[in-house]
């Protein structure tokens, strides 16, 4: 079980409060985590990754275990503490005013 913390706007969109808990099949990576997240909450498709290219949107960042994982490759394994649910995977909107 992987814990995901979404930013407020996306919690509202997905109608969730607090953390999201996901069962990810196979190896826990950004791609498998986001695939599972979008399968559970289809309204999030396109909000984190571009529909066409599959790339992370420029103003979306991924943090976990006090590290910035935004630039990690999509198929790189997530930290063990995230994969086991000990630590949450944080989806964060970049600080960009507005």
């Amino acid at each position, binding site marked *: 079980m992987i814990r995901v913390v979404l930013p407020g*706007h996306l919690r509202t969109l997905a109608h969730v409060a607090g953390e999201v808990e996901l069962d990810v099949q196979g190896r826990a990576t950004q791609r498998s985590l986001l695939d599972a997240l979008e399968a559970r909450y289809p309204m999030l*498709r*396109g909000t984190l990754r571009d*529909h066409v290219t599959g790339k992370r*949107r420029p103003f979306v960042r991924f943090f976990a275990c006090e590290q910035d994982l935004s630039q990690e490759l999509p198929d790189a394994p997530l930290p063990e503490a995230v994969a086991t649910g000990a630590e949450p995977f944080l989806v964060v909107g970049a600080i*960009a005013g507005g």
Partner: protein
Amino acid sequence: MSGVRVLVGTHKGAFVLEADGNRKRWKVSGPHFAGWEIYHIKGSPADPNRLYASQCSGWFGQLIQRSNDGGKTWEPVGNQFAYDGVPGTHQWYDGTPHPWEFKRVWHLEPSLTDPDTVYAGVEDAALFRSTDGGRTWRELAGLRGHGSGSRWQPGAGGMGLHTIILDPSDPGRIYVAISAAGAFRSDDAGQTWRAINRGLKSQYIPNPDAEVGHCVHRMAMHPSRPGVLFMQKHWDVMRSDDAGDSWHEVSGNLPTDFGFPIDVHAHQPDTIYVVPIKSDSEHYPPQGKLRVYRSRTGGNEWEALTKGLPQRHCYVNVLRDAMAVDSLDSCGVYFGTTGGQVYVSADAGDSWSPMVRHLPAVLSVEVQTLP
């Protein structure tokens, strides 16, 4: 008594305002989609309870929301806007080639007859259509493939397709306008297009009367006279009497012919409205006086409408999609400002009053006349 529902898109959410036919007491709901940019909301002419909204954010991209109950509840529908084929390039601000990239939906235009069919004008400029209530979108690629696409360039606000006009007398005829490419017409329901910019003159492009490159800000049409079009261009207010084949200037005695919105009275096809703005670099009313100008002669002769509008220290703008008219017997005219006010006139512009004063910057205003 019949009533009206006003759909307001703002920089930080959507608001729905309702009133009876007197248009004096307004029930306000919102913000819907708080914190998101709502470029446009519009109801289906075929089913007034069916609304579509364009919701976007610099962080999380584009969403399309749909309501089946007049804006009480909403559901996200499809948000995949994929250009057909390899999109190629358009011109960047400095004239260099720049790849086509989807950014947002500027304008939603529901079909006149089918609540599940809706058109979307997007940035970078293209026209999409959904025939399943917004679940899936397909580009009408003949527009972008018109042949001039590589010469289109963005206006200051981006390269958006912001105007979509469906001809009620001819299901095959569609008009669109793009900043800064110009106006285009299809006579075969969007499959093929031709530029309709003859007569436009724009000093900010190398050839002032080029086929494309004109920064059209808005077009309007009266449904009873679909061959007559009115246009607010970057500078100049224009008119066409031949479905866009040619244009002539009708700026007449306006204090400035720069502006964004233009609209037509619901019952008088030659009565039109604009909001003059000082200039392209000073986007506020001349002399700090917020004045709507009305022509009852289809242009050239304009009168200032000021009653109820601020006549000192007013430095707001009125954006291109932020003016609308209702179709009650005494035509109502509405507009919203970047200062967050939405004004209504229940007497065709003679007098105005604010419906709300302190919304976020208003991006769009639409009105539905309810039975």
